[in-house]
């Protein structure tokens, strides 16, 4: 640890204008170190997901600066930012967001293909990581043929396969039962420890947060601890 992967400086996100103006993020400043696993918690509507979207470059910010690996994410045009996301970030969402028409391995190899990897190499890497996550026998299965836990593992594999600088996870256990939730939490932690993968996990789940190195608590668009 020690080297910051993500640096947020006075990040504001304002929705609407005038009477309807809402400050979703109010001058957030934060550093996330390489290999760190950070949980972001807070009540509904406190700005957790907005934080993730803005810091990951999915959404624009109103003011401030977000650096990932020293690169100002919001200074890039959309196309460059897309390329940056493809190569440097991974995402895990509550609803898995797998492409239903692609098989597990096809979903996982997609970021590699987007980054320009060859088809064979992408398939090999995707198969390897799915094997590591215990889905070696589900490579050709479509999302609808997998359980929720299995889908989330595919989603994790997809986020990790291109060895991103950081993985952003938004309520990764939100759709899972206790057992599934436990499995995914353990897996996240294991991946963080074994591979030093930097992770930011937005969650409501105290157990998930307990497994993280640090917990950032939010309220009304601000970190309160």
């Amino acid at each position, binding site marked *: 640890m020690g080297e910051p992967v993500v640096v947020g400086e006075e990040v504001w996100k304002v929705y609407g204008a005038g009477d309807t103006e809402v400050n979703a993020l109010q001058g957030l400043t934060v550093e996330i170190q390489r290999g760190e696993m950070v949980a972001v918690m807070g009540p509904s509507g406190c700005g957790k*997901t907005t934080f993730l*979207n*803005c810091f*990951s470059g*999915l*959404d624009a910010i109103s003011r401030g600066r977000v650096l990932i690996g020293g690169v100002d994410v919001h200074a890039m045009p*959309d*196309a460059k930012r*897309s*390329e*940056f*996301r*493809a*190569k440097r970030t991974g*995402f895990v*969402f*509550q*609803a898995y*967001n*797998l*492409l*239903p*028409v*692609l098989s597990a391995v*096809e979903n996982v190899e*997609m*970021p590699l*293909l*987007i*980054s*320009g*990897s*060859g*088809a064979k190499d992408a398939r090999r890497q995707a198969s390897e990581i799915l094997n590591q996550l215990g889905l070696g026998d589900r490579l050709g299965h*479509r*999302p*609808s043929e997998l359980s929720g836990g299995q889908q989330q593992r595919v989603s994790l594999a*997809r986020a990790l396969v291109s060895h991103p600088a950081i993985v952003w996870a*938004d309520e990764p256990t939100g759709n899972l039962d206790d057992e599934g939730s436990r499995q995914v939490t353990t897996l996240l932690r294991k991946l963080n420890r074994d591979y030093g993968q930097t992770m930011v996990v937005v969650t409501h789940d105290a157990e998930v947060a307990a497994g993280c190195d640090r917990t950032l608590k939010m309220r009304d668009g601000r970190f309160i601890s």
Partner: protein
Amino acid sequence: MVDSTLVVGALILAVVGVIALVFALGHRLALRIALRNVRRGRARTVLLILGLLVGTTIISGSLIVGSTVQALSVHYTYLGGGYVDESIYALSPTGGYAPFSVAASHDVALAAQGHPGIAGVTPMIIATTQAYDHTTGIPETALNLIASNSSESGNLGSFMSTSGGMLSGPSAGQVFLDDQTAQALGASVGDSLELYGPTPIGVTVSAIVQENLRGGYLTAGLAPGNVFLDLPTAQTLENLSGHVNFIAITNAGSQQDGIALSDTVSGYLNTTLATIPLAAGLTVHEPLKDGIAAADVSGSSIQTIFLVLGLFSIVAGAMLIVGIFVMLAEERKGEMGMLRAVGMRRRELVFVYYFEGLVYAVGSALAGTLLGVLVGYFLTYTFSLLFSSGGLTSAAILQSFNVSTDDLVISYVTGFLLTVVTVAIASSRVSRLNIVQAIRDLPSPPPPVRLYTTLGYVGVALTIVGALVLLPNAQGTSDISLPILGGGMMILGLGLIASRFVRNRIAFSLVGVALLVWAGAEPLHRVVLGQAHTGGIFIVFVEGILMVSGALLLYVFNSNTLIAALLRVAGRGARGAPIARVGLAYPGRRPARTAINLTIFALVTFTMVAIACFGATVQANLNNTIQSETGGYTYFGVSTQPIPTLPEQVANNPTLNGEYAVTVPLISGAIQVNITGSTPNPYTDSLYSAPGNQSSTSSFYATSQFPFTATWEGWSPSAVLAELASNRSVALVDQNYAPATSSVGGGPSAPHPSIEVGGLMELTPPGSSNHLTVRVIGILSQSVLTGVWINPGAAETLGYSNETAFLLTLRSGVSTTLASQDAKREFFRDGLVLFEIAQILETSIASTEGIIGLLEIFVGLGLGVGIAAMGILALRAVVERRREIGMLRAMGFTQRAILKTFFIEYSFITLLGLGIGTSLGILIVYNLSTSPSAAASGVSFFAIPVLNIVLILVVAYGLAMLAIAVPSIRASRIPPAEAVRATE
């Protein structure tokens, strides 16, 4: 009197309305939600109505085009028929009307006085004459001579001069000319004319009359023109003192009333004629009633062609309705799940969609009907531009544009019911949902096993029904589309049964292949179904639907393999690989949904390409057959007076001898053909016979190059002609006698007897007791010179000797116009008229091209369905895949990449649909044009109009891409942060 169609239509609507009202009262909540859904998005409602109205537009357009053609035919029938409801005459062996004593006419008039339905009896002479205008120096041949006494012809109406004055009829020594004749002669009132007949006479033009009921009699204002005379002058001209050759009967009341009385009056006259000795041999005819019946047939034939070809678009429209409702259901899945969760029963949900669909159906059927009127007018307008010529004016065609209440009611009710029934089926389908999956937007699990059991029962039913349709019609002369449809149903039924026991992919892939082979392999039909079946336009629809279904089943159950192959190719370009993979994954992995759009595009393209190929094939064959159908001759000529020495006269005339290489005289006249078991029987036709003692350049047997579509025992044309020259008991017939075949357009189109080679026919000259039985030894492929050709000795036996028909060939390099004028001048007194055979065929080609062009435009309307379907599918995809699009953006897809993904996906669907439609459209025309029955009809060429097809494909693809452009751009601009969590 209240129109029965209106009553039936109103009754149907009332029944549907009452049922809807009962449902509404019993399901008020569903009604409220449905009405709210209608109001909640006006733009969407407009889009839905546009999508739903296509079927109605096609029905409405077809009916209106048919009605307009019918109205046009009726217009000219009334114009040409005048007030002659019945006519009494006997045909002479020369083909004209045989003269009879004027006393017979007076006897008829006396008898008619006792019948309330008869308003008048007019004795007439109707013949053909030629005129020479001494003032202008212009001659004209082949004019109708129509003569009657003014005092007896009041019931036929008055003449109207071009200045608008009403005239009763010409006096002795005077003539009235109609516009056509006056124009041809350059004649004005006061001009001196010489009229030619057995006793040429000089007359003065006393009036030029308009082509109204009286002036347009027989010709309806079309060429050739009329010359009206008084009866005594005509009797002098025709050497028919004390005789007439025609009795015109006028029924009481208007023309329409007269037609209603026609059968009664005709029956009465037949009875009366039997009691008049002088009237022996005369028969009663109903020209006006028959003409109107023929007009009805021509109108309904056009309607049928437009409707059958429009059926593809109607089916496509129904698929679109299903697609629209599935889209609505997908969009509202969450709220439907919630409604079910809070206690609404599935049945209520069905009613929500049913009521909503009902509202759309009311609006779309109305809009579709009205749009159909516009389409009908557009087609009529195009028709008026393409086909107006001579008396058939553009204005007359446009005036015939006819929107009847019946057409509007039928269109509205049919369109409404079509929409409501499809909506009801779609509602039932989309209301089946799993509450949890709907609320949580989870993917649907595979269908339960019981579905396949149900489908198995459907399969059994289909197999039985299919067998019942196929087996009784497998052999015989029924319309071939019946056994083919039955076979198709059996294949599908057996496939559904098999799907219960083997993998769906295997079962339905086999069904797909079987349908393609069964409907697409024409030789199979000959082997299994024989060659005696008749065929019509409906076969195109049946085979088209079966083949398109087969192709789609193959796609649906093998899409993965196809996509994998495509991806292997696309995957080679690393940068485009993820875009191609995502773009192709949707149509590949959701084949059933894709099939709706594929079906729509395939059906519409199939029709358009089939029509284009059909047109090109017909044109290619006509172009080719111009040479063969002319028989090597330039002109076919007819004369009003026999010219027994025409070859000699031509040879002795230096000008004509330098122009004409071949001059073949033909004995000709009218003949009654009796073929046992044929309809109509007897059939009055032309008789031709070529004299045998001619020089090599005047002998038909030495100069004819007419090809045959069938000959006795496969004889060569020269052997057939040699037999005809020497054998009194054989005959040749024109192509119209060829038995009906299973090729579209094959066989006689109007009532016409048919006969096989080797068949016997009895020939009887009109009004004669002579008769001769001959065996048909050849069927000519041409149908320009229609009739029966017999041996000259046989013709003589039957009493024919007048050489009044001719075949002439020009020397190379001679102007057809000049040579025709020279011959016309030389043989003017004989009334020789020459018809350029190639020109007749070229006119036929132009008409065919025009009609095919109109059909192409009409079925092109179906493209609207495809384009709407594509737009709707794309809109639906944007809503449905919002989260997936967000994820792709999160993973690094740029906006452009998302846009490309959509274009690849819809290009694939469009191109595949276009590919299926194009290949099958070409295949069906190939089958139709290369079958033995087509060959028997003289079709020997198959043509693919490459440019035309490319144009169709480019326009279809371009419009489809235009339709998806807006949704695709919308998809690419979805902010990823919103999309990844969206559950809209």
